């Protein structure tokens, strides 16, 4: 039995919860330069199902939290992302994409407007260095023209994700603020379990839940309190189940489903391009992206069901006559649906729901069909 998967452990960074993970049976693996738990004692299957039935607690402190401040921080950020940042109400946020000059994605990120002079955002661990270099370079140029913007990288903070139906009731035990008024995408700075936290009602599972930015020195206490208040129902959950959950929710993993050469339009994130931004442009690669919006993209991200072995990234997608029409970018067995799911890109025109395809795994073609995403219905907490 030879694993194709895990690389060897080297000089890896550790989060504030590292010892806590090991003490709880976390199987630590290298991920984007960090030693992170891929799973704990529960199997990936059980963990994935439990998140949707009860809840999951993830350490996502490897991701990079960042604050942009200054009276011009909004117009500055708008030069780099596709979102209508100016149009966001204070205390609300959105998923967005950092673009390059060719309209490709440098990274995806959840951004929040804390105030008109403070934006809080979280970028992917694997993109940290290039994102920070990119932002810094543009920030220097922006400031040299008199713009008022500065940044703070929140390396003094940890990030926990609490997801699933028990997320809100459990967290409510640990704060005096009324969480029923905090909807999907909303943000608040508040006291949780005795320390000042940045709370965003968001996540990467399709479930209701939160990402909690907590000072490093309080991170272990907060994790313990969450597990205790849930009476053991919220389980520590590793990156393995996190990936299954985001795939079931139809969410992109940067580096797999979105890359430098893929535009937000091709990735199915046209909804994240603000209306005003579509009219005005003003972000990197806007000419390419606005043209794609007009003409339609040549490739599109779609979901697949398939028979046989689960499709994995780089599996070829063929039409029924055997012509290559695309490629899988993420795939696996869905623990909640108990069948194979995948996402990938196909040529426009062959992207319609219900289109029959063949997916090649180890050279053999298996039956598949294009399907709508999310695979599992999302349960975001929105005002009724």
């Amino acid at each position, binding site marked *: *039995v*030879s*694993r*194709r*998967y895990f690389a060897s*452990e080297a000089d890896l960074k550790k989060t504030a919860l590292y010892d806590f993970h090991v003490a709880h049976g976390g*199987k630590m693996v290298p991920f984007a330069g960090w030693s992170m738990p891929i*799973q704990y004692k529960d*199997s*990936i*299957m059980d963990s*994935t199902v439990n998140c949707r039935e009860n809840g999951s607690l993830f350490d996502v402190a490897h991701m990079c939290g960042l604050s942009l401040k200054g009276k011009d921080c909004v117009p500055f950020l708008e030069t780099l992302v596709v979102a209508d940042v100016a149009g966001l109400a204070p205390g609300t946020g959105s998923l967005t994409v950092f673009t390059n000059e060719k309209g490709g994605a440098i990274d995806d990120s959840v951004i929040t407007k804390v105030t008109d002079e403070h934006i809080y955002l979280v970028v992917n661990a694997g993109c940290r260095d290039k994102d920070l270099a990119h932002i810094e370079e543009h920030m220097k140029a922006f400031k040299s023209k008199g713009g008022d913007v500065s940044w703070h990288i929140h390396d003094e903070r940890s990030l926990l994700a609490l997801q699933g139906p028990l997320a809100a009731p459990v967290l409510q035990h640990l704060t005096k603020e009324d969480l029923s008024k905090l909807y999907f995408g909303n943000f608040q700075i508040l006291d949780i379990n005795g320390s000042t936290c940045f709370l965003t009602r968001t996540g990467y599972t399709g479930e209701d839940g939160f990402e909690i930015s907590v000072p490093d020195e309080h991170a272990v206490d907060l994790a313990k309190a969450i597990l205790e208040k849930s009476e053991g129902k919220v389980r520590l959950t590793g990156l*393995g189940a996190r*990936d*299954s959950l985001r795939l079931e929710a139809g969410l992109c993993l940067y580096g797999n489903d979105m890359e430098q050469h893929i535009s937000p339009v091709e990735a199915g994130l046209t909804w994240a391009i603000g209306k005003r931004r579509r009219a005005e442009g003003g972000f990197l690669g806007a000419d390419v992206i606005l043209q794609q919006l007009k003409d339609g993209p040549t490739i599109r991200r779609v979901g697949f069901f398939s028979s*046989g*072995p*689960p499709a*994995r990234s780089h599996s070829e997608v063929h039409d029924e006559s055997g012509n290559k029409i695309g490629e899988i970018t993420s795939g*696996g*067995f869905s*623990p909640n649906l108990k069948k194979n799911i995948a996402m990938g890109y196909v040529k426009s025109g062959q992207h319609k729901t219900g289109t029959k395809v063949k997916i090649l795994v*180890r050279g053999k073609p298996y039956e598949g069909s294009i399907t709508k995403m999310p695979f599992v219905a999302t349960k975001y907490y929105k005002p009724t």
Partner: protein
Amino acid sequence: STVLEGLKYANSHEWVKHEGSVATIGITAHAQDHLGEVVFVELPEDNTSVSKEKSFGAVESVKATSEILSPISGEIIEVNKKLTESPGLINSSPYEDGWMIKVKPSSPAELESLMGPKEYTKFCEEEDAAH
């Protein structure tokens, strides 16, 4: 994890049970434990051959694909078709119902190079400690 007496083990975590002219091959309890729930098993065709330390199939868990290497060379005389419908047999019964292929060994001397149960148990302990 369980290690059975009377079987031979490869350092890639497959077992061989040699009885008369037939050798049965599967993956060990230790291997299935590390893989997690098996969701698909890819098996070779009947009447093909396998070579020592070469892949003859694959086991898919939720997140990972693992190649299965043959501990010995020989002709395949039977594959366990039950695994197609019930891949979970690899988890629930790795040494019995979860067997993968039966082979007629072409060089029985290859069996001598494999580990016995005591040696394999120690091998697993050392490998786990290294991770």
